[in-house]
């Protein structure tokens, strides 16, 4: 079970100034993701959902307000190896083999790769890539590359996991399959997870809680709790409660 206090954002704003014009990517966003929960951020382009993720990872700093991951600042949390991240495109290094790509965070953090060899093998097994350890990313399909990115996100045994449209580049069929696998993996690790997504069904299927965002300025429009039982399986996509939630989110996105 995860310790700590999860992800908290306290009145976070982020402005971008260009050519004398101010764009409010985020205005006064407050959010608390409890430890071990899976929270989905959904919203139109430019609503600041990716900005939240970049702020959480210390890739960007807020104009005002504060963030904490298990009580630590993003910079301290990432340097402590507490976080894991998978981006929309797999962002694998083409010259590294699958297992070397999974080991990249260890290299960054200065942890021994050989000490984690069995952990890496285990993760590749978990994401269904056993036998592809030595392959190069160029030899894999899109779905397989994305699974390498998921394995890489998990290699540090993160307490906090960030997923930025991890399956955005995949087709609908493959995406559903990956969603089911992701749920299984997430339930095994128990990491506090923040998922940025464009897919309404993906959000409903995976999340405990869905944050619907609106743009200009980027802000939270509505928070919807998902109390569907876990583990959710394929039949869940046809459940009436599932559809009701989908409709509720679609309406919130339309501004209702």
């Amino acid at each position, binding site marked *: 079970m995860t310790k700590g206090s999860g992800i908290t954002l306290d009145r976070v704003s982020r402005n971008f100034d260009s050519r004398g014009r101010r764009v409010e990517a985020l205005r006064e966003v407050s959010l608390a993701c409890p430890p071990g929960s899976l929270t989905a951020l959904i919203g139109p382009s430019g609503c600041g959902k990716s900005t939240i993720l970049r702020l959480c*990872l*210390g*890739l960007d700093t807020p104009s005002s307000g504060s963030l904490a991951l298990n009580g630590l600042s993003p*910079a301290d949390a*990432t*340097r*402590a*190896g507490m*976080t894991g*991240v998978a*981006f*929309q*495109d797999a*962002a*694998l*290094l083409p*010259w590294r083999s699958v297992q070397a790509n999974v080991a*990249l*965070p260890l*290299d*960054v*953090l200065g942890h021994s790769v050989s000490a984690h060899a069995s952990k890496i093998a285990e993760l590749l097994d978990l994401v269904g890539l056993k036998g592809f350890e030595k392959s190069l990313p160029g030899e894999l399909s899109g779905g397989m590359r994305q699974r390498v990115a998921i394995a*890489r996100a998990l290699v*540090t045994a993160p307490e906090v996991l*960030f997923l930025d449209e991890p399956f955005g580049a995949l087709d609908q069929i493959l995406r559903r399959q990956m969603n089911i696998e992701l749920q299984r993996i997430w339930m095994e690790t128990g990491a506090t997870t923040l998922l940025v997504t464009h897919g309404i069904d993906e959000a409903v299927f995976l999340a405990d809680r869905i944050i619907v965002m609106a743009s200009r300025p980027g802000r939270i429009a509505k928070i919807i709790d998902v109390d569907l039982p876990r583990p959710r399986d394929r039949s869940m996509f046809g459940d009436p409660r599932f559809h009701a939630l989908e409709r509720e989110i679609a309406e919130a996105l339309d501004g209702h």
Partner: protein
Amino acid sequence: MATDRMPGWVRGLLYTLALLVLWEGVGQLRLVAGGALPPPTAIALRLFADWADYPNHILATIQGASIGFVIGNAIALAAGVLFVLFPVTSRVARGLNVAIYALPPIAISPILVLTLSGMAPRVVLAAIGCYFVTMTATVVGLSQTDARAVDVVKAYGGSKWAVLRLVQWRSALPSILSGLRIAAPNAVLGAILAEFGGGGRWGLGVYLLGSLGRGEPDRLWGIGLMATAIAAFAYLAFAVAANAITGTTQAVTVPSSVAKAADRDRPVWQNATIAAASVALPFGVWMLLIWALGVPAMLAKSPAGLFEYLFLMPNSPVAQERLLAALAQTLPMTLIGMVAGLAMALGLALASQIYPAIVRAFMPIALVTQTMPLVALTPLLVLMLGRGYSLILWVTISVTFFPAFVTMAQGLILVPRAALEVPRAYGAGILTQLRLVSLPASLPYLFAATRLTVPRALLGVMIAEWLATGTGLGNLLNQSRGYLDYGMIWTVAVVSVLISVAFYQIVVVVEHRVLDRLGMASTN
């Protein structure tokens, strides 16, 4: 056609063979300037007869070129990394980089021979020939790294050093290798140019200069081809290495702009300070080098010493007059040669849009001439064209035309097919298509080619003047060398660098204006 089904290298071989046969025929019949173009067999026989002379000359040139290659590229790599990690340094060093890019090597070769000894002048010119290309390739390679991969490393708290070590350097490797590939023949050219400046008994440049007055076309051709072969071999060695690593053949593109590392916005006063530092730095380096080498003030002029020579001495008016007279001869030729070379290159590049076969036929020749040291070419042109103004013009056109053509033709290949087909879908003829799509699309490459040819044109004119016509800046430099007129040697060197930099900056400014208005991005 049957040739369409042949692999590229077979077709290339056929072209080469056809060219050799044609050359042999023309040479045997003494069709060009009474035998100035000897047949390949005569050149080969002469090469064989002279063979005892070659090894020492070749070794000396290769030695100077390789030491310079190693030193120049080591500095270039370090500078490239510095510029990317700390972008402000790239802006401060901009003036120095442009000066190094634009300086005609021949102009500083006498100075190097004056202030340094032994192999050092060759090493320095070879290193200078490598620096800009490799530095630019390093900056471009490091900056064009996949941003997402960089984010992954930063998301784990990785520093810029971790990003450099884990992502950037490896992803920059193909770019760096293609830089080294162009730097290699540059190093050979630099070494040979320094050998022209005097000093040393061995070296292909020394051999070429010594054979120039003897009117033996077959020997000159032998030396010229040998120099070309060495340069081409150096190029090929790195091309093979690059292919082994990247697995793809990349087109030859010669960097012609100072790659800028991304920098944040700064207040006006900071920008002004950086700009001032950038202008001052080349002069600072100049004075520092003189001081560090401990050369007597009579030999090594500082900026102040040069000012004194040109304006305060009794002889100053005479010096000014000679300088201005030389400029009046050199500048028009440079401009005319450059414009003619660029116009021919643009015409051929546009024509190649209509007849792609042109690129296939011309590109191999264009690539070979890129690696051909133009010093080796000039004496051959002297033999064929005599020592008049037409020689200067042809040398200048030949050094500007091919690189400009390569740049523009390769740029135009990048124009999307669909963009060309839209006008055609509405029934546009070839000329309308050229006017509406190809010509505007080629503008960024035309500018890139112009930036590229500025220093080459001046270099070409000066080499022709030095070796053949006895006019202009090139001749003034050569004469001053003979008279030990150190002030004038320095003056010509500095003035030619300044002219080159000024030309370059004018092109950059015009380019920005025009491309901004058209909403196009500059290449590089």
